[in-house]
């Protein structure tokens, strides 16, 4: 019982952290670092940055949401 509660608390902290990280990544000044006319593998770096961060956040959310089920 206690362990589940602790884990669910952990999960809450992780999710709030993810929210804060994505809030930072998707806003200035971070987004400004890539706000330049440069290309990586032929694609503008700004586009790459945004979609890359987006996928990372999705993956981390998936990981946090899935983890307790795998342990079961």
């Amino acid at each position, binding site marked *: 019982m206690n362990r589940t509660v602790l884990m669910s608390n952990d*999960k*809450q902290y992780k*999710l*709030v952290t*993810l*929210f804060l990280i*994505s*809030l930072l990544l*998707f*806003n*200035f000044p971070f*987004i*400004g670092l890539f*706000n*330049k*006319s440069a*290309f990586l*593998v*032929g*694609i*503008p770096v*700004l*586009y790459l940055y*945004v*979609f890359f961060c*987006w*996928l990372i*956040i*999705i*993956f*981390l*959310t*998936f990981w*946090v*949401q899935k983890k307790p089920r795998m342990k079961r």
Partner: protein
Amino acid sequence: MKPGIVIFISFTYVALLFLIAYYAEKRAKSNKSLVNNSFIYALSMGVYCTAWTYYGSVGRAATTGLGFLPVYIGPAIIAPLWWLVMRKIIYISKNQRITSIADFISSRFGKSTWLGVIATLVAVLGIIPYISIQLKAITTSFELLTGRDDLSVPFYMDSALYIAIALAIFSIFFGTRNLDPNERHEGLVAAVAFESLFKLAAFVIVGIFVTFGLFSGFGDLFQKAQEHPEITRLFTLETSGITSWDWFWLSLLSMSAIMLLPRQFHVGVVENTNPDHVGTASWLFPLYLVVINIFVIPIAIAGLLYLPNMESDHYVLSLPLYNHQNGLALFAALGGFSAATSMVIISVLALSIMIGNNLVLPILLRSNVLEDTVRYNMSGRLLGIRRVSIVVVLLLAYAYFRGVGNQYSLVSVGLISFTAIAQFAPAVFGGLYWKRATKKGALAGLLVGFGIWAYTLPLPTLAEAGLISDTFTKSGLFHLELLKPDALFGLNTGSPITQAAFWSLLLNTMLFVVVSLNTSQSPLEASQADIFVNIYKYRTPGAEYEVVRRQAKVKDIIMLMNRFLGQQRAHLLLRYFEQSKHFDLSKQQIANADLINYAETHLAGSIGAASAKLIISSIAKDDPISLEEMFKILEQTKEMVEYSQALEIKSDELEKTTQQLQKANEQLKELDRLKADFITTVTHELRTPITSIKAFAAILQQNEGISETQKKEFLQIVVHESERITRLINQVLDLEKLGAQASKGIRYPFDLNEVCKNAFQGLKQLMEDRGVTAQLNLPDNILQVEGNPDQITQVIVNLLSNAIKFSDEKAGAVHLCLSKEGKNAQIEVSDNGKGIPEKDQQFIFEKFTQLSDKIMGKPKGSGLGLFISKAIVEQHHGHIQVISKAGEGATFLVTLPLESPQE
């Protein structure tokens, strides 16, 4: 393409939706729900992506590059928090049976009717432009496919009107067929999930066609784009006209929109079948957004490269058409159609529920227009209201589209709606975590936020459309520069949306907080606030999904029964209930309807049915209104408890008094008996000498010839007996005096030597008469005691005369000795008589105790002497005792405290 084919295919698509919805409802009826699935749940949230996403994103990307993205970045940022926030909202809504966002706000702030009405109006007015752009998108796609201009034809030829009618029919059919207490419409959800998949597939296929058909992949596309500087500028933010300020506010607006838009609230909260599905949706839905957004920029760039003179909102359709891919164009149009229809269907349903439950019904119930019979059967009436509202909302949206919407891009109209809905954010999120938030705060914030929104965003669009005078947009309201809608309070950020969002949300939040802090909550508000903020305290897993009318906590029921039926009886009743139903109440938290009814019935037995209902409803969560009454009842019960405690104390006191009275009565009875005894004894004592006096006097009277000697002897006896009577009477008087003197207390110091000497001298004659040898021993120094010397003399005389009386008849000897024993003076009176038997020693100091001795014959004395002596000695704080052995004489010892020299 011929319009007939397009219309036919569109209607075929709608028929397909009917089939899917019908199938899903059939499955739901046989308990094999299609919708109870986290993937379907996440897909149904895809209703977020409307024609705005489908057509508008490309249009916006073609002018501002990544400027289309904050609307999807916002949901992606907040999605990790869904597990905390959205689940909490779901728990609350299931617990409180909330049916819409307006209902949620009204419920949080004490079920306020006004707040519900305002929130409904904000939602309806905010969403109508949004619905209108869906109709616009559908119409535009028709025009593009068929090549005719619908806006130039009369309205009855306008395809948008017929689309609106078809959507109204669909919504009415699946949304308002029957009244579900939980407002769940599985058919609609299934149709929406299908549409989400369909529009995604259609858009991605168009994207693939453009990227890999018209170009050879992303690299090729961007390379070709770089040759055009007006396209290259889209690759960075500032050059494309998006500032960091805009970016931040747009993502903030969409964060609130993804959760608070009426349709999002409907699919995400009201139609939710399991709160845990939120976990999956929080990553699956952002993933859906990524996929649907990947090809936005490629399509936009391709459009700019191929069709620079075309309207950019139409690229999704015009690119396939331009490349003579009519089939693909039709498929793409169907995708856009599905995006638009799903949004319209869910939005009008959500709005109609709001209008029915939070706007029309409260007004009807308040104004008493309804007959009582109708009031008890509201469900039919309610469905009618909803159907009418669906039609009205769609007609209003159509009217807005014809009047205004046609002049604006999809995205700019959509953002106006987002800004309106964001006004709910302070009340909803504040209400979720801040218990102190009050109804007045929410009302003030919402009204001001909505006012600023209306003044800065939709009103100028009406003015520009020429529907109202445009002087206020040009020179400000009342010609005040500060009130110009596009530069309110002098702030001009260049983007009307951003500055409207900034001012409305800032003042909304400020008023919400400040007014809340300066107003108080009603009891109902306070209890609702507690339920909302601490929902995890109130819920039991799974209980939300049972349609239970009344819910109460088991411990509350037990508390009530204990309070009103008494512990013992309540315990018995509950045990009986457990046995008859075969379950253990201690393992349950929430009482089922059975237990509630059982408790109510038994309570009704003891406090009356009306009160029982009131009390039960005060703890049953379905109706927490009567918290106030609950307080009152508790208050009264408390008073009663206090009253009965006071009674108990009183009766204790009474009992004590009764005991005391009884004791006193016993004492009185005893005294009475003693008095009677006393009188009997005294009269008996008196009668003996009187009888003898009478006898001798009679002899003297009747016999004249009695010798002189005899006469003398008889007279001697009469005198003697008279003396005895006098003595007796004196002693009785002494006894009385003793009682009186005890209170008066005439006391002074005197010398015991003197007293003893006097007493001894007084009796010297008697001793000589009797031939008793007497001895007096006195100390040399003065022994001073405090008290009444006459009384002490009386004691010594009494003891000494007793000693003389009982001393040996032949060679009698008495002895009076005074000595000092520590702090006491001791008077010792002894004789050499027969002594006093040990068994009698304890009685001799009592009243009228006379030692009768057969040999000694008639006792001599009244029997009061020793009693009086003892009383006198004790009054002088002294002590009297007897030491004697049968045949060895008796010694009486009197000890009196000496007066201390310093005094």
